């Protein structure tokens, strides 16, 4: 275990609030008999999925149920044996509260018990190291990435970026450092902590796969110093690994787990604005993603994930391995949720409030914070910005949040872009420190939405202009062509009339007569020849 030498700018120390769940081992929760499994077709970033089965078809656990095209796309799978009962719009687990198309599966009776047994088997799963290296040497890099893609693996740390796309970018360049993100810097969340403590060998196996794929010069696993047990578990697991892995401890500071901040923290390098980490030879993966890609390589697609359920609104807070697609209200009922609660999906800094608890667990849900409405503090009073600059002191991206706020507030969106609005990672550090309690991140999200919408509109308008200009040009050309044809025809007709008048050429009737006479002559000649021969 080593300590890091580097720092990033800013950061905050919110209350950790991890005690409710950090010492609860991962337990399996499965669907109840009355539940449906709702698999939203788009989970995380990437192009849309299309269902490949129809209503009424039966599915098996781990069966792929969608197809998708393009490099940045990943399919979804069924976590259960069952029957597809619907393919329709269902509440999505999304801050908008809107609906999205989902495949709805009714699990077979008693299949939840099988699910839990399988999950328990997974806990006692042993890694056969030699088999893994045999498997890796038998596959090409493309094949490995393809298996990871088909296994449905996306970034499980929250962003949901398709892992295959990241790795594709990685194998195209020279990767110096592979960074594994075990920071879990947001308060409340403990699922990665437990994963590292209980399933370290799966994580290390995944790291070995990435080592084989990317051949990095160094591999670093970053863990905050509030997780000593996880650090120990990882160290024990790395001793028996064939790869040389460094475990680096960093001081607990939010948002150390942000990809760009983590890269700066472990390597001292900054990822240039507007580029991906692979541009500086770094690939970063979350620990849960790494464990998932190991399973994907062994033909076990992503159908379950660990979710932290915490807060004073549930009786049994803890870390639960749940199937993707289980409705959130089913999960919470099984955890003993009380009445009148506020549910937050994600952590307290970057999460969003969930209004419809029938929406399902998706691949990117890492935490559910359930708080009694009665214990929530009242909304703080908001004052004017006093330009104290506490926000820019705290910003890990070294932006000037108060200037962004003034520009966004006065609808000067061009200015927000000049102030590097799109480098904002929406971590919420500025919101946290603001003494006037201004909801700064809301302004930046709004501004980003307006600018993106305007750019889309502009693109459509440009395209429409091009099509219109072509339309006009086409009409003009057609007119010109028609006129030309007409002119030619007239000219030809005129020429013919002229030529008919000027010379005494034999007319058609004469021509016909001559042809007939010639034919008769030929026939007579033939007759003569035939008579001569016989």
């Amino acid at each position, binding site marked *: 275990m080593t300590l890091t030498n580097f720092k990033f700018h800013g950061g905050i120390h919110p209350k950790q609030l991890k005690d409710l769940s950090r010492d609860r081992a991962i337990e399996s929760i499965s669907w109840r008999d009355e539940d449906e499994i709702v698999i939203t077709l788009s989970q995380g970033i990437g192009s849309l999925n299309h269902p490949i089965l129809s209503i009424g078809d039966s599915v098996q656990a781990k069966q792929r149920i969608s197809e998708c095209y393009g490099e940045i796309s990943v399919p979804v799978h069924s976590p259960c044996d069952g029957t597809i009962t619907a393919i329709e719009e269902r509440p999505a687990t999304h801050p908008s509260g809107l609906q999205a198309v989902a495949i709805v599966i009714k699990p077979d009776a008693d299949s939840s018990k099988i699910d839990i047994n399988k999950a328990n088997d997974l806990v006692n799963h042993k890694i056969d190291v030699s088999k893994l290296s045999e498997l890796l040497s038998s596959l090409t890099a493309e094949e490995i990435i393809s298996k990871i893609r088909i296994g449905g693996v996306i970034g499980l740390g929250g962003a949901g970026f398709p892992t295959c796309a990241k790795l594709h970018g990685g194998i195209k360049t020279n990767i110096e450092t592979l960074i594994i993100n075990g920071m879990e810097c947001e308060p409340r969340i403990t699922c990665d902590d437990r994963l590292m403590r209980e399933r370290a060998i799966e994580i290390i196996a995944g790291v070995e796969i990435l080592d084989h794929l990317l051949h990095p010069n160094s591999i670093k696993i970053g863990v905050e110093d509030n997780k000593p047990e996880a650090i120990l578990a990882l160290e024990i697991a790395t001793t028996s690994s064939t790869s040389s892995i460094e475990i680096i401890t960093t001081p607990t500071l939010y948002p150390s787990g942000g990809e760009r901040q983590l890269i700066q923290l472990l390597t001292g390098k900054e990822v240039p604005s507007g580029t991906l980490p692979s541009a500086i030879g770094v690939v970063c993966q979350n620990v849960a993603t790494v464990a998932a890609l190991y399973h994907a390589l062994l033909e076990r697609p992503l159908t379950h994930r660990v979710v932290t359920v915490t807060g004073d609104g549930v009786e049994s807070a803890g870390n639960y391995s749940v199937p993707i697609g289980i409705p959130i209200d089913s999960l919470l009922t099984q955890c003993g949720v009380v009445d009148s609660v506020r549910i937050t999906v994600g952590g307290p800094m970057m999460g969003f409030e969930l209004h419809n608890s029938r929406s399902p667990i998706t691949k990117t849900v890492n935490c559910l914070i359930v708080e009694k409405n009665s214990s929530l503090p009242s909304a703080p009073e908001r*004052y004017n910005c*006093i330009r104290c600059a506490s926000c820019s002191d705290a910003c890990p991206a070294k932006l000037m949040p108060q200037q962004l706020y003034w520009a966004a507030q006065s609808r000067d969106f061009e200015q927000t872009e000049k102030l590097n609005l799109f480098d904002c990672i929406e971590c919420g550090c500025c919101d946290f420190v603001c003494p006037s309690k201004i909801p700064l991140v809301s302004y930046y999200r709004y501004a980003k939405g307006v600018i993106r919408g305007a750019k889309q509109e502009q693109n459509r308008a440009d395209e429409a202009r091009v099509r219109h200009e072509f339309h006009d040009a086409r009409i003009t050309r057609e007119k010109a062509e028609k006129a030309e044809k007409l002119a030619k025809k007239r000219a030809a007709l005129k020429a013919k009339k002229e030529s008919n008048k000027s010379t005494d050429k034999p007319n058609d009737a004469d021509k016909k007569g001559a042809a007939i006479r010639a034919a008769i002559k030929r026939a007579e000649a033939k007759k003569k020849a035939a008579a001569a021969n016989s």
Partner: protein
Amino acid sequence: MIKTTADSTTAREMLKVIAALIPGYIALSLIFGPGALIHAAIMIPVAMLAEATIIWMRSRSAVPAIKDLSAPLTALLLAAALPPLLPWWMAIVGILFAIIIAKQLYGGLGQNPFNPAMVGYVILLVSFPLEMTSWLTPAGAIVGGDTIGFIQSAEIIFGTIENPSITIDGVTGATPLDAMKTALYQGLTISEGIKEISNGVLAGSGWEIINLTFLIGGIYLIASRTISWHIPVSMLVALLIISALFNTVDPDRYSTPLYHLLSGGTMLGAFFIATDPVTASTTPRGRIWFGACIGILIYTIRSWGGYPDAVAFSVLLLNMFTPLIDHFTQPKIYGERDNG
């Protein structure tokens, strides 16, 4: 909406600044009598009332706006800068100007381009030059001699005595800075001028102590992270350097650095006035430019300008340049590219 926030609020930050003023106020009261306290006592309620009234006239809810404590703070800062025996109605005019014209007319907290307390001070200085430059002789427990008492201060401030036993003209005089300027005009050197100033130790000993107490308050503000170090340090260092430069070249005409640092409103200005977040620069590098220019301007106006003290004017002049300074000192963002 998710709201996890730190404990700091605008009101708490203002309270910390008010607390940091306490040592300075104690020194002011001990050395010049309770004039500053009396002024503060009438200016704080007037400030809050004026602010509440204007906000109510702007059809917004007045009570939450008052709770941010920015009006009382402005009153306290202005009261610390005023001469201790200034008539009460002049103090009221000053604070009303500061709150209504310099702050609320621009849109309230956070919207004003100029430091309200300094605007109030400058209006008074320009309109009532005699009363605004009539200070008491430093006296009292620390310095020695008798200070003026509470009743006498109140009587003079409120102008209630017909035949005052002590008239303003009898006890007041110029500040050390003022006296030094006069001495220089008369052709005396600095060291000779120092002797002219009451108890001339370094800067007129009463004033040294007042500046030192404000310095203590300022150090507390920096240590408690209420203000950042950039503005006070750059202002004081700039003032130090330029005064040291001129003092070395011509010690007879230009005072020592220590004299400048500990006289007049230097420390109050460095830690409490120039650091007003609403009107100062917000970028780290910008703050250093801001503070340094204030320091240089203070020295310039003190040495070659018409007024003996220059903190207020310097701060107001630099307030004008804040947007420009901010524009040119944008910090490099994470991952900033040179060809970006």
